[in-house]
């Protein structure tokens, strides 16, 4: 019965695509079912947007034709993306690592990339859910006028933005001690959001803070969002894409080094 099995494995190896899709499907399902995560990842940006974008809104305009509610829609979409990635991946992978689950996955024939991609895909899905909810709230409660093309742009940016944030989450997961991952995630999440002008337009921040903002991926993504929503954008589009790409590469490099280091110690 099993002799046939021994000669076959290479030929009949399950397609990586199928493994990737299964892994992604269950990772998204798992994250959605984990209420402690899904409610806070979606709830925080929604709550903040309702408070600062809708309730405290006095129908002012940031610039011609762009209301505060519309402007902040971009900022909180970035905020939501960052939260999903940093808590879902930064904390989630750190916990998988400390529990030995990651080791079990590594010992299996699963392609290691399937694990990483499933986590990124989860962050992308959450980003899309968050940007959609924010948009619906903005249109229904905040009198936001949004064209289909504008929505498509911010949704696309939120999804793409989840990738550098996921890489940040991965770097974090392999660098920080798992027990303190939650605390460190908050220490990155909130200050980075504030310093990138997601809550308050960057021009109202002190000059020093404005000059350091470009080191954050959130700053670049937010500028792209504002630009596509018709608000004035600081810097050029290409500089923001370069910023996001550069940040992603740095994070991938850090993650790679951290994995190498932990392998040598194992």
């Amino acid at each position, binding site marked *: 019965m*099993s002799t046939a099995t021994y000669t076959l*494995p290479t030929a009949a190896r399950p397609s990586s695509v199928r*493994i990737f899709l299964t892994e992604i499907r269950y990772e998204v399902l798992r994250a959605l*079912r984990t209420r402690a995560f899904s409610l806070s990842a979606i709830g925080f940006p929604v709550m903040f947007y309702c408070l600062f974008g809708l309730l405290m809104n006095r129908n002012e305009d940031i610039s011609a034709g762009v209301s505060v509610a519309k402007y902040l829609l971009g900022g909180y979409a970035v905020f939501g993306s960052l939260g999903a990635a940093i808590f879902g991946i930064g904390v989630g992978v750190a916990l998988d690592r400390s*529990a030995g*689950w990651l080791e*079990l996955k590594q010992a299996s*024939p699963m392609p290691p990339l399937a694990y990483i991609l499933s986590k990124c895909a989860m962050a992308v899905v959450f980003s899309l859910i968050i940007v959609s909810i924010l948009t619906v709230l903005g249109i229904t409660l905040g009198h936001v006028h949004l064209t289909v093309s504008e929505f498509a742009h911010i949704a696309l940016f939120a999804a793409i933005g989840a990738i550098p944030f996921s890489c940040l989450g991965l770097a974090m997961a392999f660098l920080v001690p798992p027990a303190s991952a939650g605390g460190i995630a908050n220490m990155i999440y909130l200050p980075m959001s504030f310093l990138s002008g997601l809550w308050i337009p960057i021009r109202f921040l002190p000059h020093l803070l404005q000059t350091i903002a470009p080191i954050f991926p959130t700053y670049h993504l937010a500028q792209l969002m504002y630009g596509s929503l018709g608000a004035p954008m600081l810097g050029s589009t290409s500089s923001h894409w370069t910023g996001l790409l550069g940040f992603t590469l740095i994070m991938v490099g850090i993650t790679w080094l951290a994995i190498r280091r932990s392998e040598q110690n194992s």
Partner: protein
Amino acid sequence: MSAVIDTTGPAASQIPAKPQSHETVASLHSITKRYANGVTALDGLSLNLRRGEIVALLGPNGAGKSTAVKLMMGLSSPTSGNVRIFNADPRETTTRLRTGVMLQVGRAPEMLRVREHITIFRGYYPNPMPYADIVKAAGLEGIEDRFFGELSGGQKQRVLFGIALAGDPDLIFLDEPTVGLDIEARRSMWSQIRSLAARGKTVLLTTHYLEEADALAHRIIVINKGKVVCEGTPAEVKSMGTSGNFSADGASSTAQHGLKIIRCITTLTAQHLLAMPGVTSSETSGSLTLITSTQPEATLCEMLALDQTLNSLEVQSPLLEDAFLALTSDRN
């Protein structure tokens, strides 16, 4: 008919048949593993696993058991030496397709159902074990639709066993597989492990339950401080440990197979006792004297003849536990 079954008895059924094959499926060859912090976990360790055999790796905490297992799973690489699994690198995907792993896992994704966990792992293999067979072998009936996070410790352990079986592997690593299981579940996992070996699968087991190694393993490898202290069948290991003059190459003298431990309260002195036939050691703790003898009948005859007041007599076979402690204590 039932009488026939009775004659085999529970004790007999616990002694697994020796595997016939000598085909090596996994080997560690003079492995040294030194960590970045300078700790030497393995120090010139060599061991072989053969097809169809259940091998128990025993050793105190920090002996190097998990390092040895990690090397064989391809999760770590040796400082020097050679690891071969199915005559290939353990890191190769083709090697991993033929191995199954059960590790001590603190927390698996909790919001996935048992069924989903098994499905995900089955998907990694070209010829996975049929789903229904996994459920049966791991005893997952009735909990298939429960979330992992809702399971008891023993149920979680069974799911992890099911995951190890998912690919119908030829070589299975089980790290403390029966931790947290009740007696019934433990026995049923033992019988599953035996039937895997009977189908030609090789099982490497690490365990803290010496009783488990005794009942399950064809061969026990005791390691301490990164070296193999001794290896052999459970009976051989027991006699080596208790005789006090074991040899690391596994050559135990057959004379020691009748070794027994005699406990009693006696007025005879240690000097006197050691002069008796077969006595290899004598120790007094409190009023109780502990004697090990390779010819227990002769020893007892003489003791009873010489000491009329001898009482509280007990004779027992050495336990694996005693052997284990003797073999891994610092004296050796």
